[in-house]
């Protein structure tokens, strides 16, 4: 116990156990490998990896760490730093890889000098994502080796080894956890920390780092050769493990969490002695000889992997090349959508082997389905006092006024990725579209250009700087009839308060200039640019209204701090929010405050509408909405 007490993620304590989140284990692996540069854009479920490395860098002076403006920048910084010979990494979620895809595809060709690991966390079941996609398709496209950890321990060990592997082969490694690996805690035995003594020197080899076709044709041949050799080495890769059982009825190939569920499933079904298992730690490229051995030793094969049939299709190629006509099961019995689970793997095994299920999951589902109508859903909501609620409410009111005045609807209200995405839910119902990072402004332009507009887009500061700058330039360039609300709380709140270009400090805490969205908009020749405090409700509604009536693109910056951070600040100063309260005499229980704002601090109790003083931040937005003037600050008593 006392031993554990002192341990942290940067402790050089080989052999000591530590309870770590999967993402922390990944970070620890990188620290053990002596990673020197981390550049990343946060995104669930990957964010804690970058955060843990950034926190660790305070104890490790050889490191450079940054929150990058977006994943493309994050990748470019890590890749080019690798050209100087040091070990580098970038982390992102699956959709972040779409943003980084362009440089990744050229970097695959070029190869690397210092070890480069690109961690891409996939999110099966879309726990916190707009889509479900399998990043391994990009690896196939770019001939990148993919490492998939199955446990926290393996995540740590494999990550440390990934840097050496990358250096050995001169190719970056894609490291692919899934949500249930990233966000699962387990016991991890620490390894030694390597202190790199390399000097970063840029390798000025322009035939290598310049993608002129004359160079790139050669790069591509080199990449293909590299990949073929990695493929041969895959058979002896230490995280690929074949466990052949004589007389096995089924061969199973599993990777990542799929393997963990499989180990539970075969025991539960009582068939552990009837199956041969090939556990793959590297899933692109697959080890042909091990696969062939399994194919030859078992009557049929099942592939268990989260999301797409990446392993399965490669296995089918091996079978075809060797004229093996055995059945290879995979996505025919394991759903391609959603995340794997012990249940799903059991159901697949039961189907393939015709064995009885020990638990009647369907009757359990029926119990749940029967109870469901009685159980109100509990969707996530914007926090009490969130300034986004105020901004989106004002936006809705301005749109209604516009309709009344011009007998014409605002054609669309386009939302974006961030906490404010929760504005989609009633009662704000603020979003007609949500697509991807910074697509609000693109979507608002498309709909405005097709219909004549006007349209509204709203976007946070981090998302605006992520990929909204060129969108705003496009709106000005093509004179789109759009109003852009920039919800500026000067932080990337949703993923856990990472710094961004509007914050005024870097990831490591040193000061940097605050880039103000209104300055950007003015520099881009937007004619209507105003800044409001969304807690000043009437002014905000009026300003958005004038923006809607103005010609061409307009920008309204809604500036107010995230109240979660504000609360932390107050607490440090020994202060607290001054909440609001209801004047019982004045309140006629019309519940307009609830119907319009849906603030979690406003509750209906036996005596009527009440404000929970523990939750209320005193933003006074409900007071502005109340038709009876029945909401007052406790401070005004």
């Amino acid at each position, binding site marked *: *116990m006392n031993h*554990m*007490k002192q341990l942290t993620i940067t402790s050089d304590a080989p052999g000591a*156990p530590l*309870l770590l989140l999967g993402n922390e284990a990944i970070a620890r692996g990188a620290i053990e490998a002596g990673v020197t540069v981390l550049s990343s854009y946060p995104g*669930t*479920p990957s964010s*804690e990896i970058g955060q843990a490395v950034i926190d660790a860098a305070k104890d490790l002076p050889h490191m450079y760490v940054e929150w990058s403006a977006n994943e493309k920048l994050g990748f470019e910084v890590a890749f080019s730093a690798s050209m100087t010979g040091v070990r580098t990494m970038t982390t992102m979620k699956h959709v972040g890889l779409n943003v980084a895809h362009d440089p990744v595809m050229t970097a695959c060709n070029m190869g690397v000098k210092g070890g480069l690991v690109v961690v891409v966390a996939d999110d099966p079941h879309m*726990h*916190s994502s707009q889509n479900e996609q399998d990043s391994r398709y990009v690896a196939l496209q770019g001939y990148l080796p993919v490492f998939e950890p199955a446990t926290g321990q393996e995540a740590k060990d494999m990550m440390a080894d990934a840097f050496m592997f990358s250096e050995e082969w001169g190719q970056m490694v894609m490291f692919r956890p899934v*949500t*249930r*690996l990233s*966000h*699962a*805690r*387990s*016991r991890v035995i620490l390894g030694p920390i390597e202190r790199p003594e390399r000097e970063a020197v840029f390798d000025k080899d322009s035939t290598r780092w310049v993608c002129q076709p004359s160079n790139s044709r050669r790069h591509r041949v080199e990449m293909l050769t590299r990949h073929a050799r990695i493929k041969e080495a895959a058979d002896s890769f230490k995280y690929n493990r074949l466990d052949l059982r004589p007389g096995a009825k089924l061969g199973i190939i599993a990777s990542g*969490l799929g393997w*963990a*569920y499989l*180990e*539970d499933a075969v*025991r539960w079904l009582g068939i552990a002695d009837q199956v041969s298992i090939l556990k793959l730690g590297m899933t692109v490229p697959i080890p042909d000889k091990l696969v062939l051995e399994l194919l030859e030793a078992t009557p049929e094969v099942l592939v268990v992997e989260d999301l797409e049939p990446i392993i399965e299709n490669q296995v089918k190629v091996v079978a075809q090349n060797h004229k093996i006509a055995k059945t290879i099961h995979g996505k025919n019995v394991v759903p391609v959508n959603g995340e794997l*689970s*012990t*249940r799903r793997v059991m159901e697949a095994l039961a189907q393939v082997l015709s064995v009885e299920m020990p*638990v*009647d*999951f369907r009757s*359990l*589902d029926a*119990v*749940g389905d029967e*109870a469901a109508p*009685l*159980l*109100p*859903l*509990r*969707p*996530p*909501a*914007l*926090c009490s006092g969130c300034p986004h609620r105020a901004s989106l409410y004002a936006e809705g009111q301005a749109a209604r006024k516009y309709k009344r005045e011009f007998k014409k609807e605002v054609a669309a209200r386009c939302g974006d990725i961030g*906490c404010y995405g*929760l504005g989609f*839910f*009633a*009662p704000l119902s603020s979003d007609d579209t949500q697509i991807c990072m910074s697509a609000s402004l693109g979507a608002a332009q498309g709909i405005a250009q097709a219909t004549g507009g006007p349209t509204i887009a709203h976007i946070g500061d981090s998302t605006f700087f992520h990929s909204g700058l060129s969108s705003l330039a496009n709106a000005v360039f093509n004179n789109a009839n759009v109003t852009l609300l920039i919800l500026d709380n000067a932080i990337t709140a*949703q*993923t856990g308060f990472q710094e961004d270009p509007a914050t005024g400090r870097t990831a490591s805490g040193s000061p940097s200039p605050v880039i103000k969205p209104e300055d950007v908009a003015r520099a881009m020749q937007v004619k209507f640019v105003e800044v409001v405090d969304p807690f000043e409700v009437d002014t905000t509604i009026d300003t958005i209204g004038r923006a809607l009536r103005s010609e061409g693109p307009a920008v309204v910056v809604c500036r107010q701090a995230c109240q979660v951070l504000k609360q932390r600040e107050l607490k440090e100063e020994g202060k607290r929010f001054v909440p609001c309260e209801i004047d019982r005499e004045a309140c006629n229980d019309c*519940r307009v405050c*609830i*119907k319009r704002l*849906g603030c*979690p601090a*406003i*509750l*209906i109790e036996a005596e009527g509408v009440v404000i929970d003083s523990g939750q209320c931040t005193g933003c006074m937005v409900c007071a502005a909405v109340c038709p009876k003037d029945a909401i007052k600050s406790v401070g005004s008593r």
Partner: protein
Amino acid sequence: MSARPTTNVLLTGVGGQGVVLASYVLSQVAMSEGYDVKQSEVHGMAQRGGSVTSHFRFGDKVWSPLVAPGTADLLMAFEALEGLRYVNWLKPGGVLVYNTQRINPSPVSAGLATYPADIDALIRAAWPNVKCVNANALAAQAGTAKAANVAMLGAISPTLPFALDTWEAVIRRAVPPKTVDVNLEAFRLGAASASAPATECKTR
């Protein structure tokens, strides 16, 4: 020592109730006592006032991080509705311990849905082996209602094979230094409440 089978615990509640911290304490306690541990939760969107679940498994060897439906030995519900919602995750004979606190989901607050009128009766009808605890009241008695999650840990502590010393040592390290005493008191009150039998449960 004979092999210790894996024990499955599902924790459910509402974002902000401290479900994640409680899961962390459970994991540290089990690990300190030499068990293999896996604990899984969902971050991000689910935290903001939404329904939160956390899976906690311990034993000699734990393979996967998720509890399967119908296999939980213990369902630890920090809010009554979130207990009823996950009753079908319990295995036959499994126990549901719930906090008699009602937190209205946002659609209920907005008047778009209703909270089940007699949630306690519904829970009793849905599951035979039920206990409850007024964790918020116990925590308030200890000094702050914010320690309700630790009072919940106290309430379920008799159902798990961990030593009191281990619980206390882990809680000491897991909570902010200034709140150690309050949290330890909340844990003790939770443990002493011995979780009231179902007939005395009254969610409010």
